[in-house]
């Protein structure tokens, strides 16, 4: 579409020379319109340098904007309209393009890893926080178990019991783990860890090898229990104004008073450690 842009430039050049002052009254409306925002960038230096020139430039902008309106494309500039920045090289994109999609695994790189290797890497890189068998240390997340608990009063949400897609596990370990030294694991190590954690959850057998082909085929136990469209609103209350409920029925069902859970909200930060 560069010829399209050339045409714009040509029109603008013509109108800078030919636009008449009589058009001025229309300016204010247009200067307050979104169109102005789109077209200001390229001409602002001229506007600051010289008032007269600026006025002309504005007129030119208006005419260009009107022209744009007339063909219905004023709000959608052509790609490269501003021309800022650079087009990244294939190498630059490859260096940043780390994502793997959960549902179909698109973006998973070459490489592979098995359960046994994963167990070793896990012991070195992950077990300190997540426990040797993914049971979780302290308040760090538990990675295994909990299957069949999602309807319980206290459900256990783990990779095995909750996560819908296996490639998401590769993606997450690769993008964020280990927490203190992210982006230090090889693709093979991440595949191996993925295999090990899936195996901990009894989702894949001991001989499973994780790679870009096998992971999207792993069927996670909770996969079909997600609804990916938002069904809210959940409530449709009416804003009643008086005698909305029986005053006798207004009772306190729970109170935070006396529960020793609230940090201090005055003075220095409260670490809530016993003094």
């Amino acid at each position, binding site marked *: 579409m560069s010829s399209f842009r050339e045409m714009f430039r040509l029109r603008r050049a013509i109108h800078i020379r030919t636009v008449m002052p009589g058009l001025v009254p229309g300016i204010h409306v247009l200067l307050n319109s979104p169109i102005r925002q789109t077209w200001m960038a390229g001409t602002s230096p001229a506007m600051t340098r010289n008032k007269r020139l600026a006025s002309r430039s504005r007129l030119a902008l208006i005419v260009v904007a009107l022209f744009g309106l007339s063909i219905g494309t004023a709000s959608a500039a052509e790609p490269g309209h501003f021309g800022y920045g650079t087009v*990244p090289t294939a190498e630059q994109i490859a260096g940043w393009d780390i994502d793997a*999609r959960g549902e179909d695994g698109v973006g998973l790189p070459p490489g592979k890893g098995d359960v046994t290797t994963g167990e070793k890497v896990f012991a070195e890189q992950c077990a300190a926080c997540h426990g040797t068998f993914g049971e979780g240390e302290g308040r760090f997340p538990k990675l295994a178990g909990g299957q069949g608990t999602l309807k319980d009063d206290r459900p256990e949400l783990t990779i095995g019991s909750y996560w819908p897609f296996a490639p998401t596990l590769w993606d997450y370990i690769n993008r964020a783990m280990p927490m203190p030294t992210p982006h230090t694991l090889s693709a093979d190590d991440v595949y191996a860890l993925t295999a090990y954690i899936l195996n901990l959850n009894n989702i894949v057998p001991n001989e499973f090898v994780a790679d870009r082909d096998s992971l999207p085929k792993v069927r996670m136990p909770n996969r079909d229990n997600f*609804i990916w469209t938002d069904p809210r609103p959940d409530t449709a209350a009416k804003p009643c104004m008086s005698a*909305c409920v*029986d005053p006798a029925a207004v009772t306190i069902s729970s*109170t935070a008073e006396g529960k020793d859970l609230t940090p201090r909200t005055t003075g220095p930060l409260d670490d809530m450690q016993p003094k």
Partner: protein
Amino acid sequence: MRPTFWRGKPGLFKPANPRDAKLRESGVRDPNPRNLNSSDLAPQDGVNRRAMLGLGAAVTGALALGRNTALAQSESASPPADAPWSQSLGAGVVDRPYGNPAEFEAGVIRRNVPWLTAGTESSISFSPLQHLNGIITPNGLFFERYHAGRPDVDPKQHRLMIHGLVERPLLLTMEDIVRFPSVSRIHFIECPANGGMEWRAAQLNSLQFNHGMVSCAEWTGVKLSTLLEEVGLKKGAKWVMVEGADGAHMNRSLPLEKCLDDCLVVYAQNGEALRPEQGYPLRLVVPGWEGNVSIKWLRRIKLGDKPWHSREETSKYTDLMPDGTSRGFTWLIDAKSVITFPCPEKPLHGPGLYEIRGLAWTGHGKVKRVDVSVDGGVNWQTAELHEPVLSKALTRFSLPWRWDGKPALLESRVIDETGYVQPTIVQLREKRGTNSVYHNNAIQTWQVKADGSVFDVQLS
């Protein structure tokens, strides 16, 4: 004011009190009230302003001047006709080149709940709503949420890459981004886990900890739609993945329509560069949607034909329902309101006329109305909304209230421009159970006791 007084007497302008530094070194308490630590005069619960003023004057009178000692004798003493700070020369300009709040306000800070998370690097802090007035959250008090700690990004090295299903991939420096046409918008950001600890029962006796994961700022940057037009979308582009430069490379998927509607790629917050805590040098702002999608330290935008189902939108930020199913992509922040005065941190001091104050907001657009009840939802009165009432921004409301000194149950209820009415926790639980963690927008009930103290409660 006094040019003839000081002209030719430069000695008067020896800038700071030289003794300030000495005092600090020696650890001796500075008798100048301006330099007292607020912990010395911490505005504790139940200590009213008048008492504080009296105490301040008392300390000063006793320690610094050795006169007006009558002031020290009781808090009911008259205010000093000419206070110590009126009898001395204050610090000059650029004494504090980047301004700070008054030292008496030292207790007004973000706070965390230590038992909530394994550490502070993947955690949350809460804005002190009880101390905030107005709809703008000061930059130093904006709530924090990190997944891999706060990265300190060098803006010279930072880049934004836009690629995927685009005509012309782009790599932009911060200088490039600032050149694009800029817009400023005031929007709230709320973590959908705000109030998430109260699904089962009232647990935390605090406005700050129950509601402080919401903040509001004026954001300045470029419309995401402008950037997407600049790269040009290929046919089939329907989803947008946004990713941060933090250690977690936090990423989320967004539908293209929202990105072309009102999303902003911003570099400024309340008139200055973003704070590192809020994504310096560049972040996304997705107005009205759960805060997690407003990716901070934004480094990459990728166009695709399907969502990514990243960890943050599958294992987290999904809502577990009582039947064991889960909802995903529940981005919208439903309408919510809360009374910010009185509250557990700001109790009442005796019967009389008060102004009940609060904040309301909705991801649907504008707040239309807020009602307030002082009897646990039996009867309601419509509160006054304060201008400006902006779309997807915090909105102030207030209602005068003559408190008779009897126990009361205070509630606020917002109705937004779509007609949606903020539900009670009971109504919400009926549908959502108690395990969905996110999107608790229930009415908050504050119990006011006869002594004026205030507690977080839930009603049956």
